[in-house]
């Protein structure tokens, strides 16, 4: 079935389809039994989703929100200004240190790579070349 028509069916169930489109869809539904079955199936599923409403908010909900608001404001205000500055400075310092250490690690890695001994493959080929040169000399 055409996806666009299926989605039109959903819109119809949700009451989202303009009147003119509802009329056109109804004409189509009259002619197409499969489409009618599909609409019935979707409709049953849509109605089956009907469930009980969640319980309402407790009567003192607004008071709880205000309490929490006051508590959060107090906890922020209870930090002395100097302490807040110190905390901010520590965060900035931490970030700067992280960047410095990160860069240093990259430089160090590059230095290690430059100083590294030849790889196993390079040693192997060097040995192979020297052995074959020795053999050639022995033959001569």
């Amino acid at each position, binding site marked *: 079935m055409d*996806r666009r028509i*299926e*989605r039109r069916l*959903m*819109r119809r169930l*949700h009451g*989202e389809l303009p009147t003119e489109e509802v009329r056109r869809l109804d004409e189509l539904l009259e002619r197409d039994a499969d489409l009618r079955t599909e609409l019935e*199936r*979707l409709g049953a*599923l*849509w109605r*089956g*989703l009907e*469930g*009980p*409403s*969640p*319980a*309402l*908010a*407790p009567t003192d*909900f*607004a*008071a*709880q*929100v*205000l309490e*929490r*608001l006051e508590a*959060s404001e107090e906890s922020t205000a209870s930090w002395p200004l100097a302490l807040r500055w110190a905390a901010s400075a520590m965060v900035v310092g931490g970030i700067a240190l992280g960047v410095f250490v990160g860069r240093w690690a990259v430089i160090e890695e590059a230095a290690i790579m430059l100083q590294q001994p030849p790889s196993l493959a390079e040693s192997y080929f060097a040995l192979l070349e020297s052995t074959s040169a020795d053999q050639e000399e022995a033959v001569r």
Partner: protein
Amino acid sequence: MEYRAAEESTREDDWLWLARAAEGDQIAFARLVERHQDRVVGLCQRLLGNREGALDAAQEVFLRLYRKAAALERRGQLYTWLYRVATNYCLNRLRRRKIVRFLPFETSAPEGSDVRDWQPVDLGPGPERELADRQRWQRTRSAIAALPLNQRAVLILARFEGLAYREIAQILEITEGAVESRLFRAMRNLQKAQEGGT
């Protein structure tokens, strides 16, 4: 017409109270909370699946409103902003929970869920009917809880909160086409879950 006028005056009142709250008027702020608390708590409860978490999340949403009161752009409906913050907050919480547990979000009864909060309304006579309704609703909840988060949010906003595609698009900051697509995929997944469960 009357409805439109009432809606318009609610909108005006909201922004007026928010302006007062921004100046430190806690009574105005409390009135705002009281006006929107049921919708926000309800939405959080549906998204998170448990009462305690929902109350905590809703409180956090209102605290954010208070802190942003002065800077908030006074445009449209305030509840759209509240829904946006509530949805994002709950989805982030669910994502974090997923990472921590490394398990899919509650596929059976959610942690800390209180069955009393989800008692079905009395639809007819007898405890058998009530039991059947509760079981059916439990299955539906499990299927909704197993949906990907973006589909779950759209489904809840559309089906349970009764919002229009346009409003959902505003809240989730996506296009109407994306709302349509996510809702359709959510319905398909629920259908599959239902077929698999029967």
